[in-house]
């Protein structure tokens, strides 16, 4: 869905429009934001300054560029504003992204992705390895986007996070979606069974034999 891998079978519909053969840039321009699972590998240019990372996805569009020429002042102003708005802890916007802590690196990515108009947010393991404060912050931002009407696809292995943030939950097992359930109708045990490949709605007899198959 992020365009990083080609579609094998089927198609994607975004705001009513079907997408098949497409690229990350095309998907980006259609209003999709992607917070990648591996923030250092996919989400940032660690050896580049923060201000460059803040416009990583939109560098070629006005106002960041006039034709091929980069507009330095706009880039700096944008970075200053975003750093202030999202409270990224850094001495200034000119240091490399590698100097930031994990939480602040993620804030840079979130700031960047949220700074353009989007229909869909795909957030993959957005709070992995972060401190409590940063986790709180990212969660608040995601809910804020949801409240603005943006569709949010949260991919996570943290059950607490999923239960806290989601309206609906889809559980995958061995490449299949086991079920899509309402978040307020399930608990961790239910989800755990789905994650192990067992559908809890089966009869107790079937459940135990299925459990034996698993073990």
């Amino acid at each position, binding site marked *: 869905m*992020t365009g*990083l891998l080609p579609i094998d079978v089927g198609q994607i519909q975004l705001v009513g429009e079907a997408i098949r053969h497409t*690229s*990350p*840039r*095309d998907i*980006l321009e259609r209003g999709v934001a*992607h917070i*990648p699972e*591996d923030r250092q*590998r*996919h*989400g*940032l*240019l*660690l*050896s*580049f*300054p923060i201000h*460059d990372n803040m416009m*990583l*996805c939109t*560098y*070629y569009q006005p106002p960041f*560029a006039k034709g*091929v*020429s*980069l507009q*330095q002042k706009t880039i*700096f102003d944008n970075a*200053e504003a975003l*750093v*202030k708005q999202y409270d990224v802890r850094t*001495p*200034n916007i*000119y*240091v*490399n992204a*590698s*100097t930031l802590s994990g939480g602040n690196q993620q804030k840079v990515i979130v700031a960047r992705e949220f700074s353009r108009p989007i229909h869909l947010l795909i957030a993959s393991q957005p709070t992995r390895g972060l401190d409590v404060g940063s986790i709180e912050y990212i969660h608040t931002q995601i809910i804020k986007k949801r409240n603005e009407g943006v569709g949010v696809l949260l991919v996570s292995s943290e059950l607490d996070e999923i239960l806290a943030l989601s309206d609906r939950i889809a559980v995958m097992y061995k490449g299949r979606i086991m079920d899509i359930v309402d978040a307020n109708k399930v608990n961790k045990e239910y989800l755990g069974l789905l994650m192990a490949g067992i559908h809890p709605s089966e009869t107790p007899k079937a459940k135990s034999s299925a459990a034996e198959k698993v073990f």
Partner: protein
Amino acid sequence: MTDKNKLKSKTPEGIGGGSLRDAIRVPALAVLTGLIIGAFAIIISGANVFTAYGALFVGSFGDPVRFFTGFQQLFSTGETAGLLKAIYPFTESLVTATPYIFAGLSVALGFRCGLFNIGAEGQFFIGALCSAFVGYSLIGLPAYIHLPLALLGGAAGGALWGIIPGYLKAKFGAHEVVNTIMMNWIAFKLSDWLLNGPMKASGFRPVTPTVELSAQLPRFFPDPIRLNWGLILAFVVAYALYWFLFKTTLGFEIRSVGANPDAAKYAGMSIVKNLVLVMAMAGGLAGLAGSAQVLGVDHWVGQGFSAGYGFDAIALALLGKSHPFGVVLSALLFGFLRSGATRMQSMAGIPIDIISIIQGMVIVFIAAPEIIRWLYRIKNIKAEETVLTRGWGK
């Protein structure tokens, strides 16, 4: 975020964070250490270090005494011969540095995109041949058409030589180190054939005909000074490359692909487009090096024309941290060293290979900067490391 943050000025681009002083520190010390080791080599060979390095200095910059007598001669008799002879070493150093600048920019551009352009040598030769061809085969054109055409011909030839391995890398993951080396060999053999056959001037030597006057880069001073507009062109191209890499969207893409192809892909950049573009441009720059050498200095092409410029350029680009301005400085250094070394050989009897030793040591220190840091007790500042190889295949 307090106001004090605004006081910190932005760091110079392209040196991976940190101040200019930090960025220059290791390369400067590498050169110094290289010179010290060269001194040891001179001692071992039984010569006097002061005579040797003195000859090197005089060979690169010129003899101060000759300047003085040259001016005297000019004022008393109006004769310029003495003064010209006095500035000859200095101008020759600049002449030697000119192709180094272009070739260094070529390799540096490649490094910025994570590509190792070992093909600068072959691209240089092909560019020289193309320029020479345009230069000697078109007669009667005015200079303002002929010269740019000849330069363009050289750049185009080099670009073609670069785009082939570039395309193979982008589409098939074929490593550019292997392919550029192979392209070098094709260039050498092709030029052997051309210089002994279709492009051969009348006579016995395997050289091209001399290029027309209208295609030659004008010189600044009368004979024997060979300093020509090629140097100015080199400076202009270096600045243009700086602007391209650091002030344009394309340059940003190229640097991103070089720094982190995964993030570049995530950001929507086309890896294929950038790899091909960079190899074409790098080939063009190396081709321009050959052009400048033919059109400005020799005015014909012979066998062995590329004479190691492309390979030296690799050391240059590393020393200059793949930054256009760093490359210019390194190229000037290498040019002065090479030019002075010939003098050192004739005056002090030191073999010119001493320079190769010094250059080799500099490369070692740049490739393994830990040695310098350990020697001089410098703390490691996390800076952009040059990507020399990404492994094989995709």
